[in-house]
Each structure stands twice: as structure tokens, then as C-alpha cells.
């Protein structure tokens, strides 16, 4: 089989059941999801997010309690929102959205999603670059850097971006398998690296930990130029950092395979390993770096991990960054390709890879990762609210679910207006009321819910002729 044929075969495999409910025989038990989520949420981002809490002056009490409550809320969101709807519909987010909002709207959604994927992949390429640059004594970026700080940095980023792009063009399946293999080892390295440096922080027994955590590691004092994080920042960030996946419904694609909606609780494995233990561990490493460098503003996960865990630590940063960047880049390519399915996948991925690599040269992408992750969830959240209402509440209001499918519309204006209005409302809260991005998701969700019901009430017209009456999906939706 030629390489191109093989690639097409792989893409076909990925597209399996994209436009139909998962058959009973393909359903999986909750154990399968524990492994999937544990691997997915221990990633390159963890090397950045944990330290950023330290940089933003989180206190130890706020961090431990904020992450605990925020992560519990995230798990509940996955189970009660995504899990229930995924099991009820057995469809991907994309197809469900297409039935509600129309094919043109889904195209716009895909493009926005692709852009966000590119920036996330770019941040992870930059994280890998900080580890690859160690042997070359590369000048590392600082917390306040926006532009590339040296030619060496640009060259390193381009080298990693090129490799990542080439692999994304030809080897998605292998990277996915490699990421699964690396996941158990990565979480070990996170924990090990943090434990190994405890004596250097003055922690020589378990009883020393909490006093040092409060006074030294998470002292509550933000670094120069960084805003102050409270319990609420941490709780809302932990809850909403994967908002696109749970309340935004992107993980319908995964949880539609679940036998029961309670499989959504399996996400606890991922969030408590990746967004609790790994964030605390990477925060400890960064705190030691700050202590020994006299609060240097340099921010480079690679050298920090290398200093704590040696070559294993540096390898962990490269692998964590790369295994996050690679599938993300691949998904961005697929999303862009949805504009015109006749475009060659490899050409699209090459273009996306170039754009992502250029973005990765700008350290601001890493330094503002907290804000970016929050923005990512916020932008996609309104569509999750639309799906929630459409699946559960349209009938009670005398409205039609799956309106685009039933009416034959390619763009359901009620969804488009809901998206724009919700984001405009969140932007206004941010600009005029000074509410930080981390807190906008909650009021935004309620606005999206109300807006979608009102716009649907105003804009839905009685369906007199069924334009796609021969379509079995329409018949099923009507029955």
C-alpha cells in the first residue's frame, strides 16, 4: 500500500461513525475512558499552567482548595452535560451542531476551532523548544516577552515545527500510540521531579511541606508585571480550562462511545492527575527555579525540568509538548480541510503547520497560556449551551430541535445570533465592567441559553414542506 493510500485509509478510519449514531456493539465501558482521559490531560500545557499559578501569586490554601473544587465541578460538567447528551444522541459535536445550526455554520465553527487549535499547538512547540535548546545554550524567553528574543529561538522553533508538521502529515496514528505509551511515564516524571527537589526547598520531612508551601512555593506574592490570582481565579480556571470539551460539548465525540453517561465521571482520572498533581508538581519546580535564580523572569519549562530530573526531565518536556502539538495540528488541518474536502490533506496540514510554527516563535503564546486557554473555552461554550437546550428543552417551548436539518437551512440564524450576542456580552463585561476572562464563562452560558430560546422563538418558522423528506435523519428527527 502506498503512503498516500495508507493516509487516506487512516483518515477514513478516523471518520468512522461521524455522521451516524454509534452502534450498540461499539460501546465501551467506563474503564476505557479512565485510560483515555488520564493520558489526554497529562500534557505539555501542564508544564506551563502550574508555574503560571506561582507567577500570579496564588497562595497554597487557594491553590489546593481552588483546584479541588474547580476540578470536581469540571468532572460534574463532563458527566451531567457532555456524558448525558453524548449517550442520548450518540453523535459527534460536529454532526449534532450541523443538524441544529446547518452546514455553513459548522464550517465557520470549524474554522474558528482550527485557528484556536493552531495557537495551542504553537504554544506546545514553543514549550518543546525550551528543552531542545538546552544543549545549544539557547537564550530562553521571559514572562514579559512578546516577540522572539533571538535568532536561535526562531531556528529552534522552526526545526521543531517542521518535524511536528511532517509527522502530522504522515503519522497521526503513530503519534497517538506514542502519546498513550508516554502518558504513564510522564506522570511519574512530574511527581518524581517535584519530590526530588523538595530538600532544596528546605523540605526534609512530610511535616515540613505545608509551612514551606505557604511561605515559599505559593507565597501569595505575584511576580513583577503579573496580576494577583485568588481562590476564585483558580477554581474557575480549573473548572473552565476544558470548557470547550465539557460544557462546550467537544467531548461528545469521545463520550458517545460510553455505555452509560456515568462514564463522564472517568474524566476525574485526567483532571486529578493532570490538573491537580501535575500542576502542583510543576509549580514546585518553578518555585525552586525562582528561589535559586532570585526571581528571574525567565520562563522555560525545559531547563527547569532538566535541572530537577536531568535528561529524563528534558525528554519529558519535549515529549509532552510534541505529543500535544502533533494531534492538535492534525485536527486543525482536518478542520480547515472541511472548507473544501477536495484539498489534499497533506497540503492543508503543511499550511497549518507553517502558520502554527510562525505563531510559536512568539513567546507571548506561552506566557499568556492561562488567558488563551480560558478564551478558547469561552469562544466555543455558547455552542455547547445551544446543543444542551436543543436536546432537552425545545419541545417544552413549542420549538423544533434540529431546526437546520428539518428546515433544510444551511445556516440557522438563531444559533449564529446566539453565538455573536453571547461573545459580545462577555466582551462587554470584560471591557466595561472589568471582569476578567476566567469568570466570563458562567454568566455567558446563561446568556447563551436565554438568547438561543428567544432567537429560536422569534426566527423559527413552521415547517410546512419537508425539503429532505427522503432523508432518514429527517424522518427520525420528526418521529
Amino acid at each position, binding site marked *: 500500500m502506498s503512503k498516500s493510500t495508507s493516509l487516506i485509509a487512516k483518515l477514513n478510519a478516523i471518520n468512522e461513525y461521524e455522521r451516524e449514531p454509534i452502534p450498540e456493539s461499539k460501546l465501551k465501558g467506563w474503564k476505557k475512558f479512565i485510560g483515555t482521559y488520564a493520558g489526554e490531560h497529562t500534557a505539555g500545557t501542564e508544564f506551563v499552567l502550574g508555574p503560571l499559578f506561582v507567577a500570579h501569586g496564588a497562595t497554597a490554601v487557594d491553590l489546593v482548595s481552588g483546584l479541588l473544587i474547580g476540578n470536581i465541578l469540571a468532572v460534574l460538567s463532563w458527566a451531567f452535560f457532555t456524558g448525558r447528551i453524548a449517550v442520548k444522541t450518540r453523535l459527534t459535536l460536529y454532526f449534532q451542531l450541523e443538524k441544529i445550526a446547518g452546514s455553513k455554520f459548522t464550517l465557520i465553527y470549524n474554522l474558528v476551532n482550527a485557528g484556536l487549535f493552531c495557537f495551542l499547538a504553537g504554544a506546545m512547540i514553543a514549550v518543546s523548544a525550551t528543552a531542545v535548546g538546552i544543549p545549544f545554550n539557547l537564550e530562553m524567553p521571559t514572562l514579559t516577552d512578546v516577540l522572539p528574543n533571538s535568532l536561535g529561538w526562531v531556528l529552534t522553533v522552526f526545526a521543531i515545527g517542521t518535524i511536528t508538521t511532517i509527522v502530522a502529515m504522515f503519522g497521526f496514528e503513530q503519534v497517538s500510540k506514542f502519546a498513550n*505509551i508516554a502518558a504513564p511515564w510522564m506522570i511519574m516524571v512530574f511527581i518524581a521531579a517535584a519530590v526530588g527537589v523538595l530538600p532544596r526547598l528546605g523540605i526534609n520531612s512530610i511535616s515540613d511541606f505545608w509551612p514551606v508551601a505557604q511561605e515559599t512555593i505559593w507565597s501569595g506574592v505575584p511576580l513583577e508585571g503579573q496580576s494577583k490570582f485568588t481562590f476564585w481565579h483558580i477554581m474557575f480556571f480549573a473548572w473552565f480550562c476544558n470548557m470547550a470539551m465539557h460544557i462546550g460539548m467537544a467531548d461528545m465525540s469521545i463520550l458517545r462511545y460510553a455505555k452509560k453517561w456515568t462514564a463522564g465521571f472517568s474524566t476525574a482520572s485526567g483532571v486529578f492527575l493532570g490538573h491537580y498533581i501535575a500542576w502542583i508538581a510543576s509549580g514546585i519546580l518553578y518555585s525552586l527555579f525562582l528561589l535559586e535564580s532570585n526571581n528571574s523572569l525567565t520562563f522555560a519549562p525545559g531547563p527547569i525540568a532538566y535541572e530537577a530530573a536531568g535528561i529524563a526531565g528534558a525528554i519529558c518536556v519535549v515529549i509532552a509538548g510534541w505529543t500535544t502539538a502533533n494531534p492538535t495540528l492534525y485536527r486543525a488541518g482536518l478542520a480547515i480541510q472541511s472548507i473544501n474536502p477536495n484539498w489534499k490533506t497533506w497540503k492543508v496540514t503543511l499550511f497549518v503547520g507553517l502558520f502554527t510554527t510562525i505563531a510559536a516563535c512568539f513567546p507571548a503564546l506561552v506566557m499568556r497560556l492561562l488567558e488563551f486557554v480560558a478564551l478558547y473555552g469561552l469562544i466555543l461554550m455558547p455552542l455547547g449551551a445551544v446543543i444542551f437546550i436543543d436536546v432537552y428543552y425545545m419541545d417544552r417551548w413549542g420549538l423544533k430541535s434540529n431546526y437546520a436539518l428539518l428546515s433544510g437551512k444551511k445556516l440557522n440564524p438563531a444559533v449564529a445570533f446566539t453565538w455573536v450576542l453571547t461573545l459580545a456580552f462577555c466582551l462587554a463585561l470584560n471591557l466595561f465592567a472589568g471582569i476578567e476572562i476566567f469568570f466570563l464563562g458562567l454568566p455567558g452560558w446563561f446568556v447563551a441559553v436565554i438568547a438561543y430560546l428567544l432567537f429560536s422563538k422569534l426566527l423559527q418558522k413552521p415547517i410546512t414542506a419537508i425539503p429532505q423528506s427522503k432523508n432518514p435523519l429527517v424522518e427520525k428527527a420528526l418521529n
Partner: protein
Amino acid sequence: MKNLLVVLSIVGLLFTIIPPFLVFSAVIDPATSKNLMFAGTLIWFTSAPFWLNKKS
């Protein structure tokens, strides 16, 4: 053969996680710990791919 590979992988993970705890207990020095962790990494990545993710 698979059982042997699984045991080797577990040894690899133990080599990765235990040395830092020995540093914490002042049994070994950090340099030795880093070398052992690197050895654990090599053992893991040369054994786990042959059984993890493989359908039996």
C-alpha cells in the same frame, strides 16, 4: 514474552519514580537519582511499546 516485557516496563517506571524519594530521604544524591531516572526512561520506552496498546 509479554509478561517479561510488562515486568521490565514496571521496573522502568519504578526506576523513574523511586530515586527522587530516596533523594528526599537522603539515601542517594540528586545526580545518582537523575541517572537512575534516565535509565528508567530508557527501560520504559524500549519495553512498553511492545505490549502497551497492542491487542492480545
